[in-house]
């Protein structure tokens, strides 16, 4: 696909990274010539320097032949204008032409549907909102360090670490199936640096981080049985009153969770209190331990550090981990040192930039596969080493109508769940995929674009 990316900040460049690996023809536009030359030196893309909202410049990028324009500059207005102009130029003789804009100002967030409709956008992405949604999912399911959903939320992929005293220790996956006889599937196991898609004879050890695939109720039920806490948080402390905090607090308040936001800026605090009278807004310096103790950090069961400085967030989370039993979530903006940060173990880590990039990549995949079998959603897990993909099964698909155990699947591929038109099945060897189903597969191989890619040969 021919893609034009306007704006090469962190999101733009991580999009270039992922999309160029998937062999799309990419043209980047940025006002900063250094950034453009940097990126076009490392990736196989064409660079154009200038303002992406300019009609003349967009023509130069070959927009007449492009399929998609993604506007991710730091200005919402430029993004929207770029998409509007692009739609008029590129969409005039190409009905398939689509545009994606990053619109992040909370002011516009309520009008997003209108904007999307009026500007003819394919989709908008709000990184802060997406991050807030992710955090809220984690808070409501605290023992997991990461939760992803498939099949429109009907199936969850829950990642958690096996503690020392867990009954799962020393059991192979077959044993687990026999002992608990529940429709759950252990899809991915991380042991140290290694990421594996386990077979039936795989034996679990303490310290393994497993990713469990199940429907939400059964997942909770299973965790209850194996003795891992599943109680959702009831009161949450948020440090930093930025945009993510606003979206997050609103979301949490909706589901009846008490929220306390700490920020040192009085004006901002007043603004927050105006917007959310139900939340407790504390004006104070969160890097002062006394302030945190006074506000009851020991007793909260959710702690989210969302300040603008990565280092502060990490320290605050490490501190919260030490003094409380809360589920701790840390926001980190810079992705470069992710493996080091994870070594510190400051709870669950949220990278807003990669959430945004993932969201867009997922859209691009779905669009570029609109013929034949279809990638509905895609998750990159474990630093991109594992992908989970959701396919819908078209007519005459080579996987349809055959029991799974008779399919010659590639190594490192697992069929994680089958959605029979709304009825979820966590498959076993006797399960059969039918036309019209959607299936979720997990794989350590990258770049599957069609369901038949999972078959050997």
């Amino acid at each position: 696909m021919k893609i034009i990316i306007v704006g090469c900040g962190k999101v733009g460049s991580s999009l270039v990274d992922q999309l160029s690996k998937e062999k799309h023809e990419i043209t980047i536009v940025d006002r900063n010539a250094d950034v453009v030359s940097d990126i076009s030196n490392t990736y196989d893309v064409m660079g154009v320097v200038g303002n992406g909202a300019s009609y003349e410049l967009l023509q130069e990028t070959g927009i007449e032949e492009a399929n998609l324009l993604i506007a991710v500059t730091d200005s919402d207005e430029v993004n929207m204008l770029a998409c509007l102009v692009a739609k008029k130029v590129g969409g005039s003789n190409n009905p398939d032409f689509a545009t994606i804009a990053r619109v992040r100002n909370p002011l516009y967030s309520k009008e997003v549907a209108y904007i999307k409709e009026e500007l003819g956008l394919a989709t908008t992405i709000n990184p802060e909102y997406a991050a807030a949604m992710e955090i809220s999912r984690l808070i409501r399911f605290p023992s997991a360090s990461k939760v992803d959903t498939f099949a429109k939320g009907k199936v969850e992929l829950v990642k958690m670490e096996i503690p020392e005293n867990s009954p799962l220790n020393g059991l192979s996956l077959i044993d687990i199936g026999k002992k608990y006889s529940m429709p759950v599937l252990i899809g991915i196991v991380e042991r140290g640096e290694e990421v594996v898609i386990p077979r039936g004879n795989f034996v679990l050890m303490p310290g393994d981080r497993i990713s469990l695939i199940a429907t939400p109720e059964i997942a909770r039920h299973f965790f209850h049985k194996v003795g891992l806490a599943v109680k959702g948080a009831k009161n949450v402390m948020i440090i930093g009153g930025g945009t993510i905090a606003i979206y997050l607090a609103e979301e949490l308040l909706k589901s009846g969770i008490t929220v306390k936001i700490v920020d040192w800026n009085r004006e901002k605090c007043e603004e927050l209190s105006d917007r959310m009278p139900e939340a407790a807004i504390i004006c104070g310096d969160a890097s002062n331990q006394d302030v945190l103790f006074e506000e009851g950090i020991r007793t909260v069961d959710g702690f989210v550090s969302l300040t603008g400085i990565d280092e502060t967030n990490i320290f605050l989370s490490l501190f919260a981990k030490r003094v409380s039993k809360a589920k701790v979530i840390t926001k980190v903006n810079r992705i470069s040192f992710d493996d080091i940060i994870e070594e510190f173990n400051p709870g669950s880590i949220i990278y807003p930039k990669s959430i945004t990039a993932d969201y867009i990549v997922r859209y691009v995949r779905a669009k570029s596969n609109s013929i034949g079998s279809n990638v509905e959603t895609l998750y990159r897990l474990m630093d991109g080493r594992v992908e989970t993909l959701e396919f819908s099964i078209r007519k005459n698909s080579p996987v349809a109508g055959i029991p799974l155990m008779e399919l010659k699947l590639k190594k490192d591929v697992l069929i994680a769940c089958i959605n029979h038109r709304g009825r979820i099945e966590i498959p076993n060897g006797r399960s059969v995929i039918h036309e019209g189903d959607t299936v979720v597969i997990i794989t350590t191989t990258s770049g599957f674009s069609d369901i038949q890619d999972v078959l050997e040969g």
Partner: protein
Amino acid sequence: MNYGIIIYILGWVVFLTGSFMTLPCICAAIYQEQQGIYYMIVALSALLIGFLITRKKPKNHQFFAREGLLMVGSSWIVMSMIAALPFTLCGDIPFYVDALFESVSGFTTTGASILTDVEALCHASLLWRSFTHWIGGMGVFVFLLAVLPMVGGYNMHIMRAESPGPSVGKLVPKVRDTAKILYLIYFGLTVLMMIILIIAKMPVFDAICTAVGTAGTGGFGIKGDSMASYSPLIQWIVTIFMVLFGVNFNFYFFLLLGKGRNKKNAFKMEEVRWYIGLFILASVVISVNILSMMGSYSESIRHASFSVATVMTTTGFATEDFDLWPTLSKTILVAYMFLGACAGSTGGGIKVSRIVLVFKMVRQEIRSFIHPRSVKTITLDGKPVEKDTLRGVSVYICTFSVLFIVSMLLIAIDGFSFTTTFTSVTATINNIGPGLEICGPTGNYASFSVLSKFVFMFDMLAGRLELYPLLVLFAPRMWKKNS
């Protein structure tokens, strides 16, 4: 420094040189020449060695500008060394240094020869000589990029190191597609020229050699008198195609594949307009200047425009011995040797765009003396030019001058006249071929010493690769493991 990938790419270059060499083998088979056997041996061994080296894929695919420079610099040397082998083995050029000179001159599209009697060569050698122009014209790496599936954007470093011009951009987002488009235009124009030459009643073998030689703006003739004995019509065809191959290939891309506004962009390219303008200007002045010698207008216009085209595009064919022309004409021709063709074409020289930028910089400097506070950005094709590009142009011209002077001093040891010394360096460093006097259109480079020949070879490579890929080979810092 990622040596793994450099070796790997070198392997591909060896392989590619071997596969190109099958062409003279076929030619030898057609003419039933025994020399073909040597071409066969060299081609097969190159194919085998290249094949073996490329079996081992490098683990690390990451490389940067300096690996790109090193790859290109060393590959061109290796390539020339292989290409020189059959000349010596088959006995056409018994002395290996001479053979090397000939193949370097071929790949760098110079067309300077050490041969005193070209017509004594076998057909295979003649074709191979001319065909090296074609390979070197667009560049072996551009070809490699077009056929070799390589991941990542790193290969832009290779393309940039090999392609001529102050700033190398892409035509389309992918390097591979850009390379393919360039070679398609190149190939298309070459075939077109061959057909037109054959229609103009040139023998088929001559037409092939002339077309590939013109396409690469090389200039190896297959006759002792170069182009002089062909009909005026053929000479005109060659003139026109020389000018065409000296045009920035982006021009053709915009013209053929551009849509809407981009099509108009083709005619807005400042460099192309300057190039055509300067070509016409010099042709007119010289034809007036040599009118008394030629007798008729048509004769003088034909010879003048042919000579201007051959010098400006750095091809180096000849219809007339311009060494005998009046001083004004000779001086214009020597000046045009430095000018060169457009950036992004197959021609050599300093390139019109660099000269245009230099003039603009000078104008800006003068303006800043008159209005010290004036701010005025330098533009090309209506777009502002990056400071880095301008700095690159100035440094390029300085480096070029230094290299030029040092080469001249080394050549001077041979003790030839100043004109010979000056123009021989000019003609090699700008990849033209013929200079004046001893190395003029009717002369050759045979009488120079071995040292001088090596200096010429260095100059030719440096000129074709735009100095730096070759100069970095001699930077000690380049070879340190973790500098």
